[in-house]
């Protein structure tokens, strides 16, 4: 009897989630269209789209194909990666305030980029693409190793991982700070990277090499969703459900590394997406990761593209980097979420 009532309920729930996902995809498509149509150069939609239909305005063609299309695609990729990485981190640590930065991935990428600028004289996103990725991966490996050692057992607790991440982040940040203090010309270049941006030489040449890593990270994350649901019940319950915690954590960290490493490599350090998007999406999907992760991917992508569009028009004829827009908008939104969480608990 129970089975006959549960199955339709589950189907109804899945149908509702599917509709939400379809709506989110529509929102992403709308953001992407805005990303192509809106910019600091006030061209009409007809003028912007004319090159797609054989129009011969070289300015419109350059704006569409060289600027707006690449930065929209970079925004989709970075937003999806960061939001899913945030959901993974929050799931693994069972901490709603966790974000991808907790693993030290961003700090590792930053140090590696600073070394690439300072020692090798690299100054473009394409130049330090693999340094950012490699630095992120190296930091994740170090944090994972310390987290496992600190736990004193093979399964590793989330607390030891978070502590290891905080310590490694602080150390890498200090080394980065020392280098920047001793090299002001590197600081001049690094600050543009650190603010997080979709423009400034971020062409398809930067996006395409990273895309397979982000796609692999997303695939691992989606395949990992049932394990995350088990971990949400606590380590003991997850073990009782047959999950092996050590491999589960390493798989999760691998996905986070691929996702954040890829996002940081193409767009620099964009904050708040990994923190806010999973919070907002949980209100739609509930805590289950089967729907949470794809929704995060779609809405994270839409949010970053939309924030970039805002940055293009808010200080015309100049532009604001997407990292600044998300910082300005994201901080108050996050505070609002915290207040609501507190209100809901009291």
């Amino acid at each position, binding site marked *: 009897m129970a089975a006959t009532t549960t199955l339709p309920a589950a189907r109804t729930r899945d149908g509702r989630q599917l509709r939400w996902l379809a709506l989110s995809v529509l929102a992403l498509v709308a953001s992407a269209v805005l990303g192509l149509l809106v910019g600091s*150069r006030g061209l009409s939609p007809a003028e912007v789209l004319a090159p797609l239909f054989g129009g011969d305005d070289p300015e419109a063609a350059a*704006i569409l194909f060289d600027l707006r299309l690449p930065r929209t695609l970079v925004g989709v990729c970075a937003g999806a990666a960061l939001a899913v990485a945030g959901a993974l981190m929050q799931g693994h640590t069972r901490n709603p305030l966790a974000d991808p930065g907790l693993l030290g991935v961003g700090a590792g990428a930053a140090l590696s980029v600073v070394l690439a600028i300072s020692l090798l004289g690299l100054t473009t996103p394409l130049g330090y693409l693999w340094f950012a990725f490699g630095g992120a991966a190296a930091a994740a490996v170090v944090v994972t190793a310390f987290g496992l050692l600190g736990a004193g057992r093979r399964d590793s607790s989330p607390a030891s991982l978070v502590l290891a991440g905080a310590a490694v982040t602080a150390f890498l940040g200090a080394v980065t700070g020392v280098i920047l*203090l001793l090299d002001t010309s590197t600081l001049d270049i690094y600050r543009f990277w650190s603010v997080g*941006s979709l*423009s400034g*030489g971020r062409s398809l040449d930067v996006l395409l090499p990273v895309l397979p890593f982000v796609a692999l990270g997303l695939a691992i994350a989606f395949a990992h969703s049932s394990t995350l649901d088990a971990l949400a019940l606590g380590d003991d319950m997850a073990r009782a459900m047959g999950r092996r915690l050590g491999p589960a954590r390493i798989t999760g960290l691998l996905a986070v590394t691929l996702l954040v490493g890829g996002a940081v490599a193409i767009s620099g350090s964009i904050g708040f997406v990994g923190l806010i998007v999973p919070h907002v999406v949980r209100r739609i999907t509930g805590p289950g990761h089967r729907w949470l992760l794809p929704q995060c991917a779609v809405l994270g992508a839409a949010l970053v593209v939309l924030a970039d569009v805002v940055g293009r028009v808010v200080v015309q*004829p100049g*532009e604001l980097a997407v990292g600044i827009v998300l910082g300005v908008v994201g901080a108050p939104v996050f505070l609002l979420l915290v207040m609501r969480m507190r209100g809901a608990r009291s």
Partner: protein
Amino acid sequence: MRHTTLLLTAAAASAVLLLGACSTGTEATESTSVDTILGAVAVPDEIDSVVVLEGRRDLDIVLSLGLPLVGFPYEGPDTVMELEAPLAAATEAAMADGAEELFLSDEINLEAIAEVAPSIIVSRVGDVEPIIDELTAIAPVIAVNSNDGDTWQNDLNTVAEATGSEDEAAEVIAEYDARLAEIASTYAEQIASTTVSVVSYESTGTLVQSARLPALVLEKLGARFSVAMTDAFDAESQDMEYGAEQTLAAHGDAQAILALADTSDEWQSAQSDALWQQLPAVQSGTVVRSDKMVNEGAQITAMHLLDLIEQLYQKV
């Protein structure tokens, strides 16, 4: 323990006596009172050594006047600027004469300055004002007003008056004026008929600044400015920043461009930027490249700029 205390007391007493002796020596030197932005300053008649704190206009002034430079700031272990700085040759000559890189730019090190015991310190008022007491304890401070609207000629004359180098100042200013007049006369037709702009290029967009040395030198020449330059002169911030999409719309009316790109990557990026390549000035080859190091300085930098401007008008 008692021995240690005695030793420490003796060392402290020696240090005080030594400092006192130094202080007496300085006070004994003949000095002249000079008016600066920060009030009257007693400057020794004999200038044996000068330290600058900013490394741009102050360094240019000291090098232009041939003052005995002993210390200046440096940019970092390895600057990414591709082109040679306008002050590079003069700075190298000063280093061959014993001038030292004392501290990182924007990281003023008082101990390093005290160690070289300069006769005077020269720098812009914004750098010296917050630490004027500490600096004055080391040496008299000649503050100049760079970046705040005063001309390099006024700043040069202030330092010249303080150091007894008025003849040298008159000479280098006259040299600059003569070169300016020569270019104005030789290229009068091109200057009158060509719309010109000074554009800082970065892959994130472009920037036009009206309060910087290139714009001020061009203004003195009577240059015809592009709309973006005129807007920058009218703007309260004295600059106009444009996103990457705006490049053609913002600078399309400029027939000649002095382009400032700091790194080889940035300049390479401009060569592959379709909007930059569509600019009429670029298509006609009426572009001369430099970098941000020409934005601030005095006579040496201004003379370097006049060479660049001459190259630009030669291309028209």
